[in-house]
């Protein structure tokens, strides 16, 4: 029998070295795939058009300019889209959160007939195709004379934010001991007091994470804002498509500057709330 320090150890050591090299090579490849497009977005947005339209492109910018960012700020229509996005995504997130707190509490801490059916609906609601839903939403809101209003955007965004918020919050409420609520009841607290004075403070971080997810979904929506409202109420995603795929076709650098600006709020939110966002993500309730 060989001793432990024989060829066996040598194989282990070389295997480990080889593994380390392979790991770093794979890391480099993955980083290139993940980050090169973002680098390219940034570089394109910062170089003058003369360089943008040079072929083959140089990997490093020769001169830097902020003109494409200035073009965004100087375009009043883009600022309208930006304002609409902020208004509608925020309103939707807050509204959905408020309604969801009560629904999630009801699902988490009570047992009654119809509860399972409703929860099933909430879970599957996130899997219904938007394009199909849109047909009837359009007809319905058209009949109610609500097309081209902020209300229609908030309501249509609620079709995906509400199930998301209910499902996430229910998950968090499930971890709050029922005894705590029973004790508060014995102390004479009403249900509303229990929710507002006990539950909400406990799950505040969860509310923040859920609110951010709802905001992101609203911020990213394309199909509803494209169809249900006109230019004055449209949000950034359809607005930018109409601008850069239509009106100002092939203004690539302007498009990349706008793209960075639109992504920035999400990146900042992520940096601030990374821990909550990652744990919300892995809870499996959030669209990837």
């Amino acid at each position: 029998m060989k001793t432990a320090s024989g060829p066996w150890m040598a194989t282990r050591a070389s295997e480990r070295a080889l593994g380390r090299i392979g790991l770093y090579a794979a890391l480099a490849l993955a980083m290139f795939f993940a980050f090169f497009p973002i680098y390219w977005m940034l570089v394109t947005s910062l170089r003058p058009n003369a360089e943008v339209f040079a072929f083959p492109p140089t990997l490093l910018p020769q001169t830097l300019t902020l003109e494409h960012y200035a073009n965004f700020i100087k375009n009043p229509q883009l600022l309208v889209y930006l304002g609409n996005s902020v208004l509608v995504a925020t309103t939707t997130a807050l509204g959905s959160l408020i309604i969801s707190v009560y629904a999630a509490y009801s699902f988490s801490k009570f047992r009654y007939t119809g509860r399972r059916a409703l929860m099933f609906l909430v879970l599957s609601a996130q899997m219904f195709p938007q394009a199909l839903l849109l047909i009837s939403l359009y007809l319905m809101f058209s009949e109610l004379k609500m097309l081209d209003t902020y209300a229609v955007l908030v309501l249509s965004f609620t079709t995906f934010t509400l199930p998301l918020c209910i499902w996430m919050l229910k998950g968090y409420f499930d971890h709050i001991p029922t005894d705590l609520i029973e004790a508060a009841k014995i102390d004479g607290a009403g249900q509303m007091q229990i929710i507002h004075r006990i539950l909400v403070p406990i799950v505040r971080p969860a509310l923040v994470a859920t609110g951010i997810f709802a905001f992101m979904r609203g911020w990213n929506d394309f199909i509803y804002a494209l169809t249900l409202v006109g230019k004055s109420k449209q949000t950034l995603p359809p607005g930018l498509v109409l601008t850069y795929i239509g009106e100002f076709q092939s203004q690539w650098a302007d498009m990349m500057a706008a793209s960075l600006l639109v992504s920035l709020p999400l990146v900042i939110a992520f940096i601030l709330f990374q821990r909550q966002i990652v744990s919300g993500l892995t809870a499996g309730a959030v669209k990837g």
Partner: protein
Amino acid sequence: MERVSPIAPATGGRRQRPGRLKDTQTAILLVLPAAALLLAIIVYPLLNSMLIGFLDKSLIYGGGAFVGFKNLEAVLNNEFIPVLGNTLVFAIGATLLPFFIGFGAALILNGPIPARGFLRGAFLLPWLVPSVIASFLWLWIFNANYGVLNGFLRSLGVLSQNNSWLSSGGSAMLAVLIAKTWQTFPWIAVMLLAGLQTIPADQMESAAIDGANRWNRFTHVTLPHLRNVIGIVLLLSLIWNFQHFETIYVMTQGGPAKATTTFSVAVYQTAFQAFDLGKAGALGILWMLLLSIVVIVYLRFGMRGEEDFA
């Protein structure tokens, strides 16, 4: 980054027993606003959209005469098969490509690499970019005249002249898939990484001591441990990709020559560009039928062990 279990939210602590609160009236009042909204803006419109599939209805001229299976028949005889084919290629491609890349990324990010905590966060960047923006970005990368991909391939000598990637069916589908892969692989990486972090270190060690090499440890310890997360990730991806709209619509509008027209694009264009609501509804019925198969599998699978659904 803290350890998170793949399924339950990471608020810590054990899961509580089902609530003992029996105040049914309060419970129903609490859930009422949400339930009413869901019925009004999801259940009713969805059923109505499918009902429209049996009507002769136009977005411009109105109408609404019952025509039975006429729309379904027309759709089945025309666009259904190609649209189904494109949807399957997109849905399966946009599930498997990010899955393998995301799995690779998760294994890398779980390994002994420098700046691991930072990289775990940074790798989520593509996921944070909105779909429409990711589509813009890849449109620019794939651009025929000035795109960096053609620039790369030309300077490497792989191409002798610029290729216009989005003008031929096959490469257009591939371009859309790559854009979607770039945007979603981080989500899969995060999900699988969370699963990898729950594998007990001593299981790995004892397998190594037993002489299992890297590959055997992967197939005998890692994969079985991740089985649930992998199932959830694959099914959810499939469901979402089966109805994905933005990337395709922004990058190709379903073209060239309808080569990337999936159900979502077809339903949208039939309803809002050809104004034929009846036919769009009929396509929607078929779409929902196929989608519900995957959804039912998911609900069965995802709810296993969820006491609430037991």
